[in-house]
């Protein structure tokens, strides 16, 4: 066991625990999207869980750090908040903020974080860029909404944990990256029809089972 301080609290936790997990387990909220407990090498791709650690000159994503004894962590410094707000605003600048018609309304990671960080869902200073295709029906059992997707990759991670032949993958590159499918109904494993793990893992209702 190691002891560390996060903001005003002292935490005692098993050595080697992921710092983000340690905070969340102790009810200290740090915004996050792409992290799932138990990941061997977290992707650290959403760039939201920044914290400041004493001795380091810049904020670091908490999911990339293992707890150490006597570590002093701050989750709410101006530097941390600035990066978190920008990251969230960037995600929202490619997000179709149409909450009324979204099944994730009131149960949405983006809404929660916007509230926590006190930013508006629709940014004043960033342009909005939406993809042309609103919905992708290519997958035999799933609907995919690219303009909701935050590309956290949770769906791919949970699918891989269940299926040897996952149908989900990141496709294309850069700004055009999407969750992609390629194949035909026969090539998906039969359990895909009932599994739903990917849709359940999605924080923003970008993947839904086909009705």
């Amino acid at each position, binding site marked *: 066991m190691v002891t560390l301080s996060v903001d005003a609290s002292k935490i005692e936790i098993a050595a080697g625990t992921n710092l983000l997990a340690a905070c969340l387990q102790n009810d200290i909220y740090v915004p996050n999207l792409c992290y799932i407990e138990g990941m061997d090498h977290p992707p650290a791709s959403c760039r939201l869980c920044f914290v400041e650690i004493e001795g380091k000159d810049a904020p670091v994503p908490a999911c990339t750090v293992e707890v150490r004894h006597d570590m002093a962590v701050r989750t709410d410094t101006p530097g941390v908040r600035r990066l978190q707000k920008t990251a969230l605003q960037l995600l929202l600048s490619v997000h179709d903020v149409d909450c009324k018609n979204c099944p994730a309304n009131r149960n949405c990671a983006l809404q929660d974080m916007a509230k926590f960080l006190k930013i508006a869902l629709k940014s004043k200073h960033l342009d909005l860029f939406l993809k042309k295709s609103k919905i992708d029906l290519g997958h035999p059992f799933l609907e995919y909404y690219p303009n909701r997707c935050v590309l956290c990759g949770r769906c791919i991670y949970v699918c891989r944990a269940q299926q040897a*032949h996952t149908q989900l993958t990141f*496709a*294309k590159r850069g700004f055009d990256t999407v969750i992609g499918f*390629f194949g035909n109904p026969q090539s998906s494993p039969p359990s895909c029809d009932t599994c739903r793990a990917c849709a359940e893992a999605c924080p923003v209702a970008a993947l839904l089972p086909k009705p």
Partner: protein
Amino acid sequence: MNFVLDAQEKSLLEQIKTKLPEIGNDRSKLIPVLQLIQAKLAYLPAEAIHVVAAHLDISPSEVYGVATFYNQFRFHPPGKNAVKVCLGTACHVKGGDIILENFERKLEIKEGETTADREFSVDRVACVGCCALAPVIVVGETVHGHMQPSKVEGLVLRARIEKEKQEREKQQK
């Protein structure tokens, strides 16, 4: 991705299939196998994605995800005259984008596309490393340095005349 394979492409793909076992089927062979197919077919048709997936025992999605990540792979056939306009730094400063625009205008296609008759395709490339000759284009394997917008028309015209000549010769035979 809805190009239909012609007979020649089909037989090439069959040939490739017979070669795959000797390459091996661990995951690290994915990119080399895709490169091999593209070297033969000049692009990756949908059928090829399935062939590779079956060979490596991974899902077609997985193959597609990797293939779409890399600039090298293309999913529709290039034209017989594959024009690559260099937009490296030196070429940009010397007006490479104007050359690209001229091709797009002349051929009435956008970069990344192939003309309906499959004669021409136009792509941009990041740098062919001939910066002192900027602006540069590559047609097939041939590098043309010190390009000018007015040379574009000549190149396109020459290729079209060449084709007409060949067709006439074919008819005469």
